[in-house]
């Protein structure tokens, strides 16, 4: 089995998940690979993750943890950028409102 065949067996929504954990799945016994596919096909991503993670060696676990940290970094960078954009948009709207208010009082 290949990574692509694994992807084909599950929903496209899990493509990134298969990219990350597929190599470990391919190293598993056939019955375990089949269980992994069944879990993902049923939308049970947490259980599929646990199946793979329960067999992670030292270096794999460290890489997995660091990947999660990086995902948090990316999520927080996006969140902060979104907040800055919201504030910018609000400032623009408020400046228009201010202009209207000033015009209404004759200033």
């Amino acid at each position, binding site marked *: 089995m290949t990574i692509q065949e694994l992807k084909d067996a599950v929903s496209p929504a899990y493509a990134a998940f298969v990219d990350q954990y597929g190599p470990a799945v391919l190293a598993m016994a056939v019955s375990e690979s089949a269980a992994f596919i069944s879990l993902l096909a049923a939308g049970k*991503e*947490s259980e599929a*993750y*646990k199946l793979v*993670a*329960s067999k*992670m*060696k*030292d270096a794999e*676990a*460290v890489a*997995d*943890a*660091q990947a*999660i*940290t990086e*995902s*948090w*970094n990316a*999520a*927080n*960078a*996006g*969140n*902060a*950028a*979104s*907040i*800055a954009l*919201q*504030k910018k948009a*609000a*400032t623009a709207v*408020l400046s228009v*409102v*201010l202009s209207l*208010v*000033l015009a209404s*009082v004759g*200033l």
Partner: protein
Amino acid sequence: MKRLAIVLAVLTAIGCMTGCSGLQASTQMASIIDRNADHATDMISATQPADVAKAGLKSNAEILGSYFDAATVNVFAYWFGGKQIFCTAAYYNMLRKSADASAQYRDNVANGMYSDDTIKILFVEENKWILQVKDAKDGKDVQR
């Protein structure tokens, strides 16, 4: 001019408050998140012995699991359903991943699968996640 100053002050205050984070927490949960982040900061300020890190992995799994249990993407569940964290789908997935991973690392460590060095690294990474939940709540971009 006095009226104008008041209008400007009010509009500025509203503008400053408008930015809304993708992860919101109730007052009680926000306090818990802050307290846990303070402890995480203490834990990663110096290298901890393996036995401390091992015990820390257990408590971190509880903390991260409780965050996921408290999270929802449904605003009604947040306001009326007892959930204490309201977040985007992306943050919900991050909370789930962190809860799943910390629970599995805890179990793997209990099964004697990892060296002391690995246990210490996992402990540091999990403490970063606890800090990153606080960063998410506060809308901060701190690369950890």
